[in-house]
């Protein structure tokens, strides 16, 4: 720590969870999932371009998407979406002054929901279909 002044170069420390509260863990999770989901959005849009190339291109791509590794990646995206979305609800609520005093409990509740949702989706993706 050479200098304690705020500096843009310290952005990596956003993701340092040491000595931090659930609020910051939520903030960290939200930033990471935000970046991840944005990347996914870009890829998703590009991949859907295969639809325009006709049935063969798209169905080959779908066959690839059914391989286990891609499925794991997809589950990660779903998980990220759940975490970001549910925590987003928490932020929206508290931003309008609702439930500010129970924001910790909201965080834990929504995180549990997100994990539960991930497990359910994972079960369907890997064992049902």
């Amino acid at each position, binding site marked *: 720590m050479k200098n*304690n002044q705020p500096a843009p170069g310290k952005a990596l420390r956003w993701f340092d969870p040491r000595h931090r509260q659930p609020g910051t863990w939520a903030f960290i999770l939200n930033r990471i999932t935000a970046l991840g989901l944005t990347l996914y959005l870009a890829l998703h849009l590009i991949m859907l371009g295969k639809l325009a190339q006709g049935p063969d291109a798209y169905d080959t791509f779908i066959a690839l998407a059914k391989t286990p590794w891609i499925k794991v990646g997809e589950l990660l995206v779903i998980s990220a979406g759940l975490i970001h979305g549910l925590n987003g609800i928490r932020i929206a609520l508290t931003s309008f002054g609702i439930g500010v005093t129970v924001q910790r409990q909201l965080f834990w509740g929504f995180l549990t929901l997100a994990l539960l949702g991930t497990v359910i989706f994972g079960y369907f993706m890997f064992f049902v279909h």
Partner: protein
Amino acid sequence: MTEGHWHVTFCIYRKKGDQPPFYQDFPLEVDPDEYVLDGIERIWAFHDRSLTFRHACHHSTCGACGMLVNGVEKLTCITPIRAVTKNGGTIRVEPLRNFPVLSDLVVDMAEFYLRMEQAHALQVVPVAQSTLPYEPPPFPDDGLPHQRLNDCIECGMCVSACPIALTASSYQGPAALAATQQTYSLTGEKSLLSLVDCADGVWRCHSGFECTAVCPSNVDPAWRIMELRRQVIRHRIQRIFHQDR
């Protein structure tokens, strides 16, 4: 209670002038019920007269002695050594984050105080409205116009803990925003809202709630920022319907 004395090592951030900073260890015999600030003052008195640190009241009314103790913002005058380490343990003391370091543990509060002044932060408030609205009233109201010193002691710890203040020096910060909320609630002064209705104001907060976690004085800056957002939006909506201001 009679655990006798503890041996504790104070690991203190040192910086003088333009020289590079370093950490210096001071082994100390302490009473675990002593406060961290007592240990620091003793280091100055008996071990190293060049150590600089801010302090004044020693009972959490002045807000001068906020520091980073083992990585967490603490008001050192009311933090017992027992609460931050164990016998034989280490106490790491650093200056607050997100402030320029003048020397050792002393940070420059100029910008912070300027922002508090611009937010029209009150230091004396009516007793009846001195607590947070969601708290039970502390006192039966005897109808007299009692006033009291405000909860916010301007220690800067909320700014030190804020993940946004870490990178964005232009962010007004939790203390000034919380003060704006309180002053607006008490005075209804609309110009305060336009001061915070901007990118560096209420809309910059990312709901980390760290400020509230470290506040030693029940200010709950995060709650106040959220409330301030509501007040700003309410005011904007009112402006749409009544073209008064």
